[in-house]
């Protein structure tokens, strides 16, 4: 019977091409508008590392100004150098990483080529296994390289292509800020969205092009270019004083595999801040936090308000399109009331009429979904053109979104078809069809 109804639906759609086109378009425009925005929201709120996002914890320590007594003042979103180093040395998590953003100048071997700046992340050996970065060649460095201040580096795939033409560059060296670094690994395509490990400096920025040991960057006072916040002036001049200051500029992540590890780590953090209090730091009430990846995205409000507002408006937009569709379906079904009453006379029960018309509605929804997908694609191109590189990685339709678009279209059309179908079911069987 299903196939029969499909055929009837198709015949009915074909029988009134203008009305059918209008309905498909109404749904398609609604789907196009809402799916464009939903796709962007989905990308913004996506889980960038689904298989272990509940084992990775962002560490916040409340080392902020004791005089800042605003009720809603949160612990700072980064940590000080002092705390980062103490936590690294304590080595109490399964893995731990302190990292920050910087930019280095890379001098190509060929003296005719001009040097250029590369986005860099100063980090620790655990960064690569902790965030499961995919490697094209080689791998990350050992923690011995962190301690031994070795000049090693991991390149992104793009940078490796630019500098080494894409070949296996492990063992070769690159010149960064006047120093030679040995390549130990080349990453494959790696673009977590959002860029969860450093949302402070841009949640939708691309990943860095180059990674070097954090300790090396400190040792040679290489430049930083990420966000730095201080509530108190460093005591004294120079780099040493800055390192010893209460300025926060480092992101700290801990990998904790289960509840027990998490609880133990929290106990450790609390004990640590108590000990620091004794040294005259941490003047505010204790407020240490461990947020897993998705909790951290939520706390940092990675999904922008504009995106949420547009999402609400676009869903209302879909409602308007559906109200339109209801009207059109009603007109269409009522125009067919003669056929329906004949079918009823010939033995169709109300249920048969119901199924037939719901399937027809669904079919129109399917058409609307397919056209709507095309419009969504156009819409995303439009969003990209409007907002530029900032949304570069947020405007891609994946299989999930394609399915969602079709499903939303069909479900919407079925919902819109409910009332007209109910009306169709109320049509009485009759021997005499009245015109008008």
């Amino acid at each position, binding site marked *: *019977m299903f196939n*029969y109804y499909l055929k009837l639906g198709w*015949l*009915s759609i*074909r*029988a009134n091409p203008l009305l059918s086109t209008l309905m498909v378009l109404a749904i398609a425009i609604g789907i196009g508008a809402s799916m464009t925005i939903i796709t962007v929201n989905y990308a913004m709120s996506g889980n960038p590392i689904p298989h272990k996002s509940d084992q990775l914890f962002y560490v916040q320590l409340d080392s902020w100004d004791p005089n800042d007594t605003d009720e809603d003042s949160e612990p700072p979103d980064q940590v000080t150098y002092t705390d980062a180093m103490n936590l690294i040395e304590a080595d109490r998590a399964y893995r731990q990483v302190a990292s920050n953003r910087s930019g280095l100048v890379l001098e190509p071997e060929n003296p005719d080529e001009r040097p250029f700046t590369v986005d860099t992340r100063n980090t620790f050996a655990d960064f690569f296994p902790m965030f499961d970065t995919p490697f094209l060649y080689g791998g990350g460095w050992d923690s011995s390289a962190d301690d031994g201040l070795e000049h090693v580096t991991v390149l992104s795939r793009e940078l490796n292509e630019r500098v080494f033409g894409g070949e296996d560059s492990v063992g070769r060296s690159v010149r960064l800020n006047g120093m030679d670094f040995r390549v130990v690994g080349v990453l494959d395509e790696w673009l977590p969205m959002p860029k969860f490990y450093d949302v402070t400096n841009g949640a939708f920025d691309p990943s860095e092009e180059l990674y070097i040991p954090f300790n090396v960057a400190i040792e040679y006072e290489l430049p930083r270019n990420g966000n730095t916040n201080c509530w108190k002036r460093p005591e004294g001049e120079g780099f040493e004083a800055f390192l010893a200051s209460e300025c926060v500029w480092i992101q700290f992540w801990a990998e904790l595999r289960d509840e027990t590890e998490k609880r133990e780590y929290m106990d450790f953090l609390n004990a640590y801040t108590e000990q620091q209090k004794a040294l005259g730091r941490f003047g505010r009430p204790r407020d240490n936090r461990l947020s897993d990846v998705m909790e951290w995205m939520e706390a940092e409000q990675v999904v922008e308000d504009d995106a949420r507002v547009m999402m609400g408006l676009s869903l209302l937009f879909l409602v308007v399109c559906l109200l339109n569709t209801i009207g059109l379906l009603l007109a269409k079904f009522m125009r067919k009331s*003669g*056929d329906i009453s*004949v*079918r*009823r*006379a*010939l*033995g*169709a*029960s*109300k*249920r*048969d009429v119901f199924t037939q018309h719901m399937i027809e509605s669904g079919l129109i929804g399917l058409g609307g979904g397919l056209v709507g997908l095309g419009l969504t694609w156009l819409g995303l191109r439009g969003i990209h053109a409007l907002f530029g590189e900032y949304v570069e990685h947020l405007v891609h339709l994946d299989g999930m979104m394609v399915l969602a678009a079709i499903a939303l279209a069909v479900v919407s059309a079925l919902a819109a078809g409910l009332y007209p179908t109910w009306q169709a079911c109320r049509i*009485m*069987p*009759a*021997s*005499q*069809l009245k015109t008008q």
Partner: protein
Amino acid sequence: MLSMQNISMVYRTDTVETHALREFSLEVGEGEFVAVTGPSGSGKTTFLNIAGLLERFTSGKYLLDGKDVSSLSDSDTSKVRNEKIGFVFQGFNLIPDLNVFDNVDVPLRYRGFDTAERKRRIEGVLERVGLSSRAKHLPSQLSGGQQQRVAIARALAGEPRFLLADEPTGNLDSHMAESIMALIEEINAGGTTVIMVTHDPALAERAGRNVHIRDGQVSDVETDVQLVANA
């Protein structure tokens, strides 16, 4: 076969009450060919709608095949219509989007026959009404007489015990009307009970029995003829 006892049908709106049938009683036996006549507004169509289970009545008792059908659910009523009753309408009432084959197919689909069975039956009835060659045509490509033949084929495809015809020749010229009447007589001869509503006395005469409806009740034929003569 068909037994109506004291059937009344009242249409109500906010202000008006219309008695379409009053205490209407009629018995029709197996294999009969009954013509129902009467002036317009007399209740002929209401009678046919009730007989064909297209409408529910206000009071009274209706036995079809010995079974009380007044309190069946919608899906049971639909099933009875589908299996026992064939309809032929004045306006043919073919579905314009479906071709001849698919139009005849409609009741068979609701019957739940498999593809082979449906094909066999459709081809059989189309052969019988002489339209085998037009199976792929749309109704709009057929003459009125051919359309009515399709409608009759559609009514017969499910091999119903009853054929209800509402002015089957009303929209046809006399030549076509004759061929349709011949077909209906042939069907009746095959054992199917036929009830035909018409206002044409010439057609009514060809039936085995005439029932005249006036003001929602069966009235005596002779009386009516006299009234007509007096008017």
